[in-house]
């Protein structure tokens, strides 16, 4: 049994959502508020520090991570609309601060972090009513969400609740889209080959929309789709769910 | 020079060794035991082995020597090697008549004297099997002075006698129940089919270096 509905949650938007997919962040907040949960958004938040962490610049990562944790002091859940950012905070903050004076507080913070879809399904038990027209979508699973946060059942469960939405599976749903943060810049040819394959897979489903719970993947895949002229729209799952289910 | 290397290597390892982690899984049982009823072991072994082209000849405790002889005759085997002082050697030999093919070639001399024959002139090698493993479809062989290793390796056909009652569930069970740790033979073998490879375009091909055919005589 879950601990019961919290009265309030923190929302950590993530830097990619902030800059490129703010509507997804807003949608996530709306989805939470609709369930009767008060959402607190600390204004000073910036980035989970994953880019520096993944590149091995752990001193810099710690500085930014510490700054984030200080903004979420109350014992409220921290809900994050990204599997990779949630994974960073939940699984890697404890590593980053192991052996430092912040070890205990980092572990405590990490234990409060939830990915948005997992929170909606696992804690709030949302029930969605589809108010949109018939459409098809395809789903990209996002590696960190899938493999670090175990994010698979929850997004599919939410999509299954939308009666007018058909999910057309990708041929290689679980294969990486090739973003990998700075990997896309350090090894652009390999990254390009990966995203080209993913974009072709997406286009091959003929679905007009590709969904993901990770904005970085969307930036990557969406960029490739647009360059290839494919008429597929990349959308964050939260944004899609909110649009399909909000009262007109 | 070698002495120095040994001490240098061990010295580096000892310097870095931590206290042992909790022995998680140390006593992990071979699992899951009791998966196959005794009556299921043989069918499972057979299914697994036939899936990789092992052939089976069914026989009885009294009749297997003739059954093997008839099989070998039908295959056109001309010369068959075996271990005359093996546990089943005398019974095997008794089914063959001198002068009538196939000719029995006792492997009772050092390999240096047998090598050419084994490599060029022997059509099949006969051995007993110590037992079997149902889970993976496997024969257990312990080559010995009486049944040398190359009998089951060099001739293009290996004929192995397997008594169904000696089939166990798993390799782990076999090791433990038979207490192999108390004394390993110079060579112990698990054989699960005829020789094969998928090195060319991941396409299965049989009979690479080991025997092209594995025939299990079931008793």
């Amino acid at each position, binding site marked *: 049994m879950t601990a019961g509905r919290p009265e309030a949650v923190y929302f950590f938007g993530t830097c990619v*959502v902030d800059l490129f*997919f703010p509507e997804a962040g*807003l949608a996530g*907040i709306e989805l939470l508020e609709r369930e009767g949960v008060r959402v*607190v958004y*600390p*204004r000073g938040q*910036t980035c989970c520090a994953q880019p520096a962490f*993944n590149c*091995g610049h752990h001193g*810099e990562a710690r*500085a*930014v991570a510490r700054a984030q944790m200080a903004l979420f002091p109350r014992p409220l859940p921290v809900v994050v609309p990204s599997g990779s950012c949630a994974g960073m905070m939940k699984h890697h903050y404890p590593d980053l601060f192991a052996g430092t004076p912040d070890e205990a507080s980092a572990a405590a913070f990490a234990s409060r972090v939830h990915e948005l879809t997992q929170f909606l399904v696992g804690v709030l038990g949302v029930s969605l009513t589809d108010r949109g027209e018939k459409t098809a979508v395809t789903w990209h699973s996002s*590696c960190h969400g899938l493999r670090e946060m175990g994010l698979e059942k929850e997004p599919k469960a939410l999509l299954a609740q939308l009666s007018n939405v058909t999910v057309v599976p990708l041929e290689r749903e679980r*294969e*990486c889209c*090739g973003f*990998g943060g*700075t*990997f896309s*810049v350090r*090894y*652009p040819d390999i*990254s*390009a*080959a*990966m995203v*080209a394959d993913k974009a072709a897979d997406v286009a091959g489903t003929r679905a007009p929309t590709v969904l993901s719970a990770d904005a970085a993947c969307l930036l990557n895949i969406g*960029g490739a789709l647009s360059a*290839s002229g494919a008429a597929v729209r990349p959308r964050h799952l939260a944004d899609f769910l909110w649009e399909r289910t909000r009262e007109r | *020079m070698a002495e120095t*290397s040994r001490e240098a*290597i061990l010295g580096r390892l*000892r310097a870095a060794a*931590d206290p*042992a982690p909790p022995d*998680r*899984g*140390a006593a992990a049982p071979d*699992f899951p035991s009791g998966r196959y009823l005794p009556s299921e072991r043989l069918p499972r072994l057979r299914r697994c082995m036939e899936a990789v082209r092992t052939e089976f000849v069914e026989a009885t405790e009294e009749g297997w020597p003739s059954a093997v002889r008839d099989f070998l005759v039908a295959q056109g085997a001309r010369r068959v090697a075996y271990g005359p002082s093996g546990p089943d050697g005398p019974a095997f030999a008794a089914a063959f008549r001198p002068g009538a093919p196939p000719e029995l070639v006792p492997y009772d001399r*050092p*390999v240096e004297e047998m090598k*050419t024959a084994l490599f060029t002139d022997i059509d099949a090698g006969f051995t007993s099997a110590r037992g079997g493993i149902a889970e993976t479809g496997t024969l257990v062989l312990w080559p010995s*002075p009486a049944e040398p290793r190359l009998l089951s390796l060099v001739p293009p056909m290996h004929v192995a006698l397997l008594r169904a009652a000696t089939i166990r569930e798993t390799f782990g069970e076999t*090791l*433990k129940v038979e207490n*192999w*740790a108390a004394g*390993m033979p*110079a060579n*112990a073998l*698990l*054989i*699960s089919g005829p*020789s*094969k490879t998928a*090195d*060319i*375009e991941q396409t299965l091909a049989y009979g690479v*270096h080991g025997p092209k055919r594995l025939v299990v005589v079931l008793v």
Partner: protein
Amino acid sequence: MSAEGAPDFHASSSKALRDAPLRANFRRAMDGLMAKRAAQFPDPAEWAALRARAAAVRARSLAKLPELLEALEAKCVSNGLKVHWAATTGEANATVLSILRAHGATRLVKGKSMVSEEMHLNDFLEANGVESVESDLGEYIIQLDGETPSHIIMPAIHKNRQQIARLFGRKIRDAVYSEEVDALTATARRVLRQKFFEAQAGLSGVNFAVAETGTLCLVENEGNGRMSTHVPPVHIALMGLEKVVERLEDVPPLLTVLTRSATGQPISTYFNMITAPRGPGEKDGPREIHLVILDNGRSRIFADGELRATLRCIRCGACMNHCPVYTRVGGHAYQAIYPGPIGKILTPQVEGLARRHDLPHASSLCHACTEVCPVEIPITRLLVRLRAESARSSAGSSVLDAGGGRSRLEDLAWAGWRAAHASPALYRMMTRLVRLASPFVPSRFGPMKAWTNVRSKPRPARRTLHELVKEKGLGDG
């Protein structure tokens, strides 16, 4: 930024990406191997239990490594084997040669051994007048063509049957030209059978070395391993020092995940357990068995409690079969003995980060490898660790050439990133700047070009989430 003459994975991977037949071959091969493995582990709960057990066995071996190696040596010696220790590949090569010379042996037949690849043994022996013939079909094929393996389990995976048929036609006397797999296999069998017959010594690797009984275990499907270890009068076994396991009962849990992960088989055709040379009364088997225990950087890896997990590896190849990078560039692009994910953590530690700092970065950190490793090596985590070792100062690190990938430019860039993200005010300024400047950032130059080669330039939204939230009047704390 690499050391002089260091392999350049950027260049070699880009080149490989342009080789369409190579990509097609590897894609098809990896798909097949992934499917076969998946069929062997249909139950997630059972898979979790199997890998936890295998990981525990390997972790225990490593925790007791020096003690187990000494016990292994003592037991092998009392069983009649000769045991040699080699700190470097040079020493190992010299040891092998001296054993061969002591027997006047100039014809060696080899089973598959990745350790022998580390040693570049064949080249060394040829230079010293010893013919060293690979007998594993895949290794034989690439030896004929003067190549190195492109995969640790299927060395000739990059070749199709036409290429092999032409190769056999060129290099094998009396070979009848055929592109049929069975015919090609039969040709190899004929040639190698003669080599087994004539060999004066045989060489093998070791999959597991059991300290309890002094038993060397070999996994194979073809029979060439048994031929190499049973037929010639001398058997030389090469093992990396991490291959020791404590007890005989540790073997079945490792064997089952190895064969299932590597080739999707419940067990290999042959599992060969060697404990002693030809005993009294025995008619065959080698008269002498030599075990060569090789370090070559492993003791250094062992010294780091976290990186030590690299040594759990049982060489199944599952990581590379599932790697989206390996699938697209193949094994040769890594220019290393061990390619793929395991290669990306092992090679930099053995050869040093100055030479190989580009490898840990050649990953999108997708975790596909970590997910399938049967001994739970946290590969992704170790890649990040090695990136950190590459970027830091070398003081206090046991990693070879720590700091070898350090770059002033990168240090500055990350310092700048930190400044922009540790301060809310600076972050706000930066996002404003990005939005304003974005239309003017040329998409075809500099770092942006790397992105825009196949993607449209990313367009920041007109308003940030911070701004939307402020408008909405959401609570701050």
